[in-house]
């Protein structure tokens, strides 16, 4: 339509298959310039395939990918100007850190001064100066991922794709790195799509979150909106909500909002399977009498309940979420 704003990235009705097996089914979404989008979903939901389609490493069977209004669906990867950082850093082992980061600008024939300046800038921003002359084999996993991010950012890509880049990094370092990544992407004003199955990481890094299940977009919105109003049982269960039934209608309740009461009282009947200490809280696993399972998180000082005990689960009405409250994408 004349006058209508063209999205920075427009993905329309993308279908992709592995053989005859559908991996992506009519996936559509937009990305605004400078936006950080988290693509969240369980393993096998098609997140990585979608990213590879955007990068040009796979070709969708149907649908289109438009960058600034230009259809790039059939373009080879080297013409797209899209960067990718994956779980495996895929650094060039025969090049030093400096040479790895300089690779993209050199391929694009930047002049030597501009290359050196860009590499120095990124080395500084990611605290990699002292590793500049080292080879990737001499770096830790976290350092390699920082180099991979610097290498991907060096040629100033239009769009950066991050495919679970922190999945192989240990938990303590992961928290530092994701804060570092977010700051850097903000500072570079880079549009990015970040794929993860870690909801905490997805919410932290994304301005917006796109939930992908079985190759379909299940929900899209801000992290807060998705957390508060998951669209349907699948999304709610993925986010850690217990799915319980009241009057035949499903409701979602967080494990820390459920209470355990004695058998015979009000609430949903359940039976304890096991309980255990999980750090700051005690986790109690239960089998619901009407089918399915639930988890209750209570204070670590709470009395232990023996396995097999019949109990009732209750919650405050205001903390429960129901399908009627959840917006559809």
């Amino acid at each position: 339509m004349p006058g209508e704003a063209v999205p920075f990235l427009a993905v329309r009705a993308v279908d992709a298959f592995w053989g005859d097996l559908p991996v992506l089914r009519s996936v559509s979404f937009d990305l605004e310039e400078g936006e950080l989008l988290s693509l969240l979903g369980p393993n096998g939901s098609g997140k990585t395939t979608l990213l590879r389609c955007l990068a040009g490493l796979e070709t969708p069977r149907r649908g289109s990918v438009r960058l600034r209004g230009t259809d790039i669906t059939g373009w080879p990867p080297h013409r797209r100007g899209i960067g990718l950082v994956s779980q495996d850093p895929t650094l060039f082992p025969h090049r030093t850190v400096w040479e790895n980061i300089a690779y993209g600008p050199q391929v694009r024939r930047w002049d030597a001064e501009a290359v050196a300046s860009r590499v120095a800038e990124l080395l500084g921003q990611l605290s990699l100066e002292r590793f500049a002359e080292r080879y990737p084999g001499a770096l830790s996993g976290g350092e390699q991922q920082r180099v991979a991010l610097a290498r991907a950012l060096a040629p100033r890509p239009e769009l950066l794709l991050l495919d679970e880049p922190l999945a192989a990094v240990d938990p303590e370092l992961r928290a530092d790195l994701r804060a570092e990544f977010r700051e850097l992407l903000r500072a570079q004003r880079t549009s990015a799509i970040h794929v993860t199955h870690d909801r905490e990481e997805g919410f932290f890094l994304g301005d917006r979150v796109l939930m992908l299940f079985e190759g379909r977009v299940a929900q899209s919105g801000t992290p807060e909106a998705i957390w508060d109003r998951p669209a349907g049982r699948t999304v709610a269960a993925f986010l850690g909500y217990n799915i319980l039934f009241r009057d035949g209608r499903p409701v979602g309740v967080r494990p820390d909002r459920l209470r355990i009461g004695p058998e015979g009282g009000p609430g949903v009947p359940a039976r304890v399977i096991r309980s255990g200490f999980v750090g700051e809280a005690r986790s109690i696993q239960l089998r619901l009498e009407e089918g399915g399972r639930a988890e209750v998180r209570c204070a670590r000082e709470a009395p232990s309940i023996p396995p097999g005990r019949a109990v009732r689960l209750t919650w405050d009405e205001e903390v429960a979420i129901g399908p009627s409250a959840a917006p559809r994408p």
Partner: protein
Amino acid sequence: MRRLGAARLLPLLPLVPVLLFVLLVVLLPAGFVFGGALAGGGADRLPALFGDPLNRRALENSLEQGGASALLAGALGYPAGIALGRFSFPGRRLLRAFLLVPFLLPTLVVVVGFEELFGPAGFGPALWPALAGLGRGLDGILAVNAYFCAAMVSLTTAAAIETAPHEQEEAVRTLGGSPYRAFREVWGPPSGLGALAGMTLTFLLSALGFAAPLVVCGPGCYTLEVRIWSLAEVLGQPQEAGLLALATFLLLSLPVVGYVYLLRGSRRRRARRSRSPPPLRLRDPRAWPAIAYLSLFFGAILLLLGVVLLRSVTTVSGAPSLAGLRLLFAPATARRLGISTVAAGANSLFFASGAAILALLLAVLAAYGARSGARGAALPEYLLFLPLLISPVLLAFGLATLWRPLLGGASGTWVWILLSQAALALPFAAQTLRLALDRLPKGPWEAACLLGSRPFAAHLDAELPRLGSAVGAAALFAFAFGFGEFTATYFLVLPPFTTWPVELFDLPEIRLGAAAPALAGLLVLVSLAGFAAIEGGIRRLAR
């Protein structure tokens, strides 16, 4: 899902030289020979071709020599392959690399070696007279073929065993499986496939044997390859030779397809890297059979090389003497051969180097094509197997009849020798590179593409530098193939372009057989020196 479907035609551009080479050097000349044979009623004679007793005898000899050599090489090479693939020990890598040496030696050197070992004046009969016939007749041909190919079978077996991760065997054993069950479920099937691939290649190379039947046995043992050469070059019946070449081509297509299928099967297994196999401990009695067999196996390889080297500087009675070398480099010898030994050596070096460079370039392009995943890009790689089907004699026959009269005549012979040597080396050089490339993760190549490199440039930047050792090995293959190549070169050669292997064949023909052991010794030395130089280079590159 199509991979890299967006890059449709551009990745295929680097393959154009490969396709042109195969078309102009292999397919067109062979097609020209076939066309000439079928013209003028030739096609009608094709069904009755093996009614001729000499042709039928050649077919029977090919099948007999190919089949028996494959079985013999399999029986000798499989146990060595198991020992090399399933255990680690100091020097294992070097021993594995050394297995290539017999395969790369000129056939005639091995023939000379067997003559020295088992001939009338050889070391063997002196120790045990029953060994006297081993160097001659069908036994001699099988011994020569087995010497070449047993090492190759052990190499393909060891490589195939390494595709079965040792961790899987540990899992079977810790779950209560017996060693036999581990063999049956983990390393037995791939080792069998590897051995079968090596034996199929042995069958092909032996069924098309040329030098051994020609020298060791004579007309009664001629294979199809010798019969084609004889018809084309000696008897002046090119149409009959073409018809027999076509029949050979059709007969051998089945084993060649089988060989390529087996290679594809073993390649699919090469995705995982495994830890080193368990060490071979000298004190462990269970390791003794493996140690004993490996000692015998490599002892036999070294014995023949040692005998050839020794005879090059001794008399028949064993006394030290440089008479053979003096005769080899004497001006009179040069006059009778039409070329000096030094010049023939320079020719060998020139052809082998040129063929190695050309084969390596084409192998890099073909391996890239297969790697790129673009539709149709794997085709040239399969075309490179054509020289296994289009035999050296057919290749040379085609080049000589189609191109030599059109381009350069006799003075252009050197071009056709170089091209034929490159074509024959290509399947092995390309396969060496391809296998190494399959072991590399694709991530860095994809990363280079995403950073703006064109697919071929990304291959050169991100993958080729990591293939240093494979490039070195491919170069070794191609060089050694060229240096030792006899059949096609002998068909094409004219005196100014004579090479050492051709000279080695010619020396007894001009009654200078006494110089042959000296030249065979030189060829062994060059092969060993080349092996050492490139092996050292490979180590440096691998670091």
